[in-house]
């Protein structure tokens, strides 16, 4: 694999003191909560961005906020970098450590602390997985809305770190719109509470800036999230179109007609073929673009909405319309879409890009994307959240061929720049991490970036928290 992305040089003085640091950490947490044997450190070397790995100094897996605070206080005192980690499913390298850093893994803090139906909140420890919140309240008719495809594994702390989204965010918003409060350990070990069960927070919206800060402002140990009453039912419909343009203008007209479905997912022909071969979901193979539109509500409501949507699709020359008639069919429609990453992984290595564009630019960006991919002699499959313009080109390549890998990486960067130039941004849900760090200047001016870094410095003046990430290494305050 390439090593195009640089990390900060590890601090030799810290590396030299490794043994001492491990001994000191052993005083702060029980022995089984400290990982330091080289072989045991291997699983923490990388995250979902597998192309890069670094072995951390040590890994601490605390069980309490007090332990997190003690570790932070210690690392702060000695200037030791800390990399927070949830489940390590980041696709942008957000949780990849560096050699002189202590990884602070929250996975052991996985208790649901409070479920409050009267106020429709759940308070959970940071290591609780996204799906287990919905599982815990599902039988009582509630759910937690943001639903990343990784929801079985990823943690609420990691979701807050990345401000994660998912297919159903069109209606319910992303993490930041569903987060009411956090317990946050600051870089020096101070514990603060931001927000709580009240719907609005007081003073500056620090909760808003912590959400999506990729482990750079503090360690989240607990979170209070909104629960929402489950709709009576939900039903996806599959639409096949002869062109991406037709699918795109259908989406625009649905929204223009005053209908906001819960999800509008888009797949291009290569993605349809890959998913169908794997999931046998019955996707049409004679179309250029496919939309999965999901509506929810009572039977009567869904009927009414679907009738309008189908009508609009017909006006755009839809070739295939498949309404799911049963729960089984609905599950099958989603299975195809949800297996996109896994199915692609079976036929080739791939990198999953994550840019957003204004809806009106979708067709243009898809066209340009295929031009870029052709120029590099690669293949691409596109699946994405069309309702909010969040594109996920999967660039296929051969991981064992360094030149191919370098081409894939370079093509990916061009596509992200294209998204920005089309009025969008570098990342809609996977974060900047190390992956897009050096493209930040493409989206922001030096002044814009300096203002963000200044806010970062208000929380962490010495840049101890996850320091290799998000901001270009040059020009930091």
């Amino acid at each position, binding site marked *: 694999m390439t090593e195009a992305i640089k990390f900060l040089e590890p601090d030799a003085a810290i590396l030299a003191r490794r043994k001492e640091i491990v001994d000191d950490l052993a005083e702060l947490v029980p022995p089984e909560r400290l990982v330091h044997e080289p072989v045991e450190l291997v699983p923490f070397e990388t995250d979902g961005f597998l192309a890069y790995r670094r072995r951390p100094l040590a890994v601490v897996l605390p069980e309490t906020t007090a332990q997190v605070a003690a570790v932070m206080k210690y690392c702060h005192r000695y200037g030791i970098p800390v990399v927070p980690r949830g489940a390590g499913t980041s696709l942008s390298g957000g949780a990849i450590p560096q050699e002189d850093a202590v990884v602070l893994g929250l996975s052991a803090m996985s208790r649901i602390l409070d479920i*409050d139906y*009267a106020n*429709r909140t759940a308070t959970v420890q940071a290591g609780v997985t996204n799906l287990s919140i919905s599982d815990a309240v599902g039988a009582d008719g*509630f759910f937690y809305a943001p639903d990343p495809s990784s929801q079985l594994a990823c943690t609420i702390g990691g979701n807050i770190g990345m401000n994660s*989204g998912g297919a159903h*965010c069109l209606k319910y918003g992303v993490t*930041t719109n569903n987060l009411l409060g956090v317990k946050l350990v*600051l870089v020096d070990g*101070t514990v*603060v*509470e931001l927000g*709580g*069960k*009240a*719907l*609005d*927070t007081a*003073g*500056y*919206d*620090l909760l*808003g*800036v912590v959400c999506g*800060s990729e482990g*750079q402002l503090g360690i989240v140990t607990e979170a209070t999230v909104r629960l929402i*009453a489950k709709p009576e039912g939900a039903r996806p419909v599959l639409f096949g179109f002869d062109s991406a343009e037709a699918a795109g203008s259908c989406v625009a*007209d649905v*929204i223009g007609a*005053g*209908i906001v479905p819960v999800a509008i997912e888009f797949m291009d022909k290569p993605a349809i073929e890959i998913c169908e071969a794997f999931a046998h979901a019955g996707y049409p193979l004679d179309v250029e673009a496919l939309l999965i539109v999901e509506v929810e509500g*009572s039977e*009567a409501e869904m*009927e*009414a*909405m679907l009738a309008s949507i189908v009508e609009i699709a017909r006006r755009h020359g839809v070739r295939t319309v498949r309404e799911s008639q049963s729960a089984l069919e609905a599950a099958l429609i989603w299975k195809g879409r949800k297996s996109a990453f896994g199915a692609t992984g079976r036929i080739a290595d791939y990198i999953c890009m994550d840019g*957003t*564009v*204004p*809806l*009106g630019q979708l067709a243009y960006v898809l066209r340009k994307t295929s031009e870029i991919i052709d120029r590099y002699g690669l293949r691409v499959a596109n699946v994405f959240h069309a*309702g909010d313009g*969040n594109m996920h080109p999967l660039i296929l390549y051969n991981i064992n061929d360094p030149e191919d890998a370098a081409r894939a990486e370079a093509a990916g960067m061009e596509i992200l720049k294209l998204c920005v130039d089309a*009025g*969008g*941004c*570098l*990342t*809609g849900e*996977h974060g*900047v991490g190390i992956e897009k760090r050096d493209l930040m200047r493409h*989206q*922001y001016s030096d*002044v*814009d970036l300096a*203002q*963000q870094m*200044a806010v970062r*410095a*208000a929380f962490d003046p010495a840049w101890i928290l996850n320091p290799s990430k*998000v901001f270009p290494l040059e020009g930091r305050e």
Partner: protein
Amino acid sequence: MASQLTPATETEAAEIIRDHAERAAPLEIRGGGTRAGFGNAVQAAATLSSSGLSGILTYNPAEMVMTARAGTSVAEIEAALDANGQAMAFEPPDHRPIMGTTGEPTIGGLFAVNASGPRRITAGAARDSLLGVRFVNGHGEIVKAGGRVMKNVTGLDLVKLMAGSHGTLGLLTEVTFKVLPRPKTAATIVLSGLDDEAATHAMAAAMALPVEVSGAAHLPESVKSRFLSGGLPEGPATVLRVEGLEASVAVRVEKLAAAMQRFASTTRLGPEETAVLWREIRDVKPYADGTMRPLWRVSVAPSQGEKLVAALRLATGVDAFYDWQGGLVWMRMEADPEAEILRRYIRALGGGHATLVRASGAVRASVAAFEPQEPALALLSQRVKAKFDPVGILNPGRMTTGEPA
């Protein structure tokens, strides 16, 4: 009389702020001035107005996004949205009636105070709709943050920080925000005769149903007659709103009414009365009483609003009604603001915050308008403020946060 500076461009605004920063000369930031008298008083020899920065820049209804200059009047924005069957989902209130002010609210002022109405309980606050901003910080630098797409996690979310910062971090020059289709129709179920506590339970039960209640408010006897020109049925009114497409509202209202039978007798309001009622709730109609009697906006966990009022009633003269299922309590005090006791009770009931929205000049001079923060949080907020406005020239003193302790 403070001099008024009205830049015609963002560049000019930046020059003015840079010049004032160099001279450490404070500026009061002003939109339409309809909130004049909100927050703590600002001492500044000059006022910087956004009124020269006006106009809708882009609006594509199919993308559900609008970009406008900060000084654009809310009326102009709403008219443009209305023509396309869309609206700001967070239902920004018009506080002119309670503040006794005139003038035209601006879109920048609205986001600067993070205005949010009854639909906040499902659609979020103004900050949840704000996607991107341009602003001039206290150095006189022009900064852009966020973008114009629904999902954006590129770097730190300074957009949220600017929302609700009351002009203390920068002068907003441009805002990009999400808009939604305006509900095609709406209906309200009125439950009559419930006391505050029973109403709180009924509202929680309604919000737990799969019928998407988009507004839940309780109007005790003391205020009820001031809504709908006295047209609500006998007794305290607990009101629940359902919105959406015709067919869907009809079905959901049936279900909601059936489920609410066990709490009280119910009546229904059609779309016209629903529109009027919720506008009156949004704009705090009962306390648009032409007085300067202290008015608080209290945000607590929805189940605690009623307990807070019950406790306060034992100690002082207070009149109140509840929005957001009790999570937003509007309180008018008989005479004194009773800030100390109110804030103590809020802490005892699990936290939240109280904002003094209206009071006489004398009261405002002695009572902090915003909730005082814990020391560690106050320090952090001050450090953040210093990163935007190190000289402290932007609305000094308006929020307690950011002021030297």
